[in-house]
């Protein structure tokens, strides 16, 4: 039987039907008006980008504000999904250019790699910081928090030099998707350690002590007790690390030189021209890139709140 503080986290609120008074109805109308106004403000940019994607005319000659533009079509989505990206080619012909599918595969590899490295290694470090007393504990934790504050844009040049030197299978680590995932994981690790440690701290020690008496090793306690009980925090940390790998493009742009390895975020960035941007295709691409993240967010929504706050509530 789990202690009450733990079962509470996973329990849903029971639904209770009550009789509404006239006052309740008026209050409800006020609340709904307020929430609808917020809804319009939140949704407007999303609707704007949707209507941009559906607009076959481009935006060089705007004719006022129309949510569903005349002659709306899904043509820009078709173009983005199936036509080659003319800016990302290795040779002269179209079949050497990148397609959406290839970019998607690279993006998934980088994002999943980032999540695996950041959450796997982050959870292990957070466990040590949360459960053991040892020499250098304070210094180690300070190190992670200080690195969270460092602006990363300044690190590009030294990182480039360093990862060019490490060679795997006759290729510098810098120009591989693996190298990119490791670099992103380094960016995501401080938050992962900080958030997971906060959550681990709230798990009562009674469980581990019982397991210790039964002769379990610390490693076994870690992945049989701590990890399963930290599902919300693990989910949130995975989501955020995945998002880092999915959306980052500055580092990728500097590191990767083979277009065969380019990611969706880089393709989107390459559409942003100096003078002209093909807005319908740009909008379609943005939407296609956002949908998986939104889907993950909605799927994990119930856990996001507890995964982020339970650790900090206890302090």
């Amino acid at each position, binding site marked *: 039987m789990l202690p009450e503080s733990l079962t509470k986290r996973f329990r849903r609120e029971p639904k209770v039907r009550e009789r509404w008074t006239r006052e309740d109805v008026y*209050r*409800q109308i006020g609340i709904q008006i307020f*929430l609808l106004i917020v*809804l319009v*403000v*939140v*949704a407007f*940019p999303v609707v*704007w980008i949707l209507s941009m994607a559906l607009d076959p005319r481009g935006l060089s000659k*705007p004719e006022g*504000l129309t949510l569903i533009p005349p002659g709306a079509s899904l043509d820009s989505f078709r173009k983005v999904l199936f036509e080659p990206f003319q800016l990302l080619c290795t040779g002269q012909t179209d079949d050497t250019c990148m397609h959406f599918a290839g970019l998607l595969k690279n993006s998934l590899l980088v994002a999943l790699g980032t999540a695996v490295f950041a959450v796997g*290694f*982050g959870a*292990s*470090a957070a*466990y040590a910081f949360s459960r*053991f007393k*040892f*020499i*250098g504990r304070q210094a180690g934790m300070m*190190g*992670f928090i200080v*690195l*969270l504050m460092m*602006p990363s*844009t*300044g*690190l*590009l*040049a*030294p*990182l480039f*030099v*360093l990862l060019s030197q490490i060679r795997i299978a006759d290729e510098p680590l810098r120009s591989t998707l693996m190298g990119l995932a*490791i*670099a992103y*994981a*380094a960016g995501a*690790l401080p938050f992962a350690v900080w958030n997971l440690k906060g959550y681990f701290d709230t798990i009562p020690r009674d469980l581990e002590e019982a397991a210790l008496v039964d002769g379990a090793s*610390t490693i076994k306690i*870690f992945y049989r007790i701590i990890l399963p009980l930290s599902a919300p925090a693990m989910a949130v940390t995975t989501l955020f690390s995945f998002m880092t790998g999915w*959306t980052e*493009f500055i580092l990728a742009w500097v590191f990767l030189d083979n277009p065969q390895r380019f990611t969706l975020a880089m393709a989107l960035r390459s559409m*942003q021209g100096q003078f002209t941007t093909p807005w319908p295709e740009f909008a379609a691409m*943005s939407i296609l*890139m*956002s949908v998986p*993240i*939104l889907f993950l*967010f*909605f799927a994990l*929504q119930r856990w*996001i*709140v*507890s995964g*982020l*706050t339970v650790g*900090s*509530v206890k*302090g």
Partner: protein
Amino acid sequence: MVAKAETATRIKRPSYWRRWWRNLKKSLGPWAYIAPAGLIMATISFFPQAFQVWLSFTDFKAKNLRFNLFDSGTWERFGPDIIGLDNYQRILQNDLNIATYDFLRTLGFNVTWTVVNVIFHVLFGLAIAMVLNSKHVLGRRFYRAIYVIPWALPAYISALTWANMFNPDFGAINQLFGLNIDWIKDASAPIGGILGWLPWAFYAVLVANTWLGWPFMMVVATGALQSIPTELYEAADIDGATGWQKFRHLTMPLIRPAMVPAIMLGTIWTFNQFNVIYFISRGGPVGKTEILVTQAFKLVFENQLYGVAAAFSIVVFFILLIITLMQNRLTRATESYDVA
């Protein structure tokens, strides 16, 4: 006698070094858990940082780019000159030959930008979380799901969307409100007086980043509000407390522990909010909305002043450190409250 006493104590308590050694051996287990993460952080974060510190004392420029730390053959020919604290001096004295560069203005704007943003994020986030947390709300789950969209969208996609919406010719904002404002290039200030130094572009990036930032605060506040037992409010009602009193003496102290770390995280994120500034205003007009990270980025990629950029990044780091320590001190000083 003295010698005998010494041996006696030695038997009772092992020497300092021996105890230290024993602790060190015990520390090996925990350090093994940290090793994978620590190794990555050491190579990807810490080592480049150290390299950056060295870089900041040199005049590293584009012509030094063939310098390779791991190839001593390049040291002689391409190595930069050590110039001591020169870079730091030039940064702080605006001696860089960049027309729009002004350190104190950038710092001042960055602090203003952060404070105004975080206040708005917390106010909107908390207010909307409280409304959504009231007793009966039809469609509560629906609203909560939709409201996290600004947070869930990749930040630079939102930033570019807002940049498009603030376009003076075809942007949604001007069309919707029938305005004719050149949001980004117009250097004049819409509000005079003490706010006279903030151009239209400031309000544009503020609107965009507020749209982007409040859902995080709402999510954290929702979690904190849900953990308050309703019995407390019922007890306050019986005692005849007003709405404000309940908020001031019940809600506020009880959501504080969750909100404080969120605000600290939000402050660091907003202080370093690269996407919104870089893609909407690009720091313009004439550098008036430049923040420190966008300036650092430009020093590397537009001006190719690597040594100066390294020194700049280190100055930014110390500023962030001071802000974090101050926040820590402030929150700790006001921490002691009694729930009962």
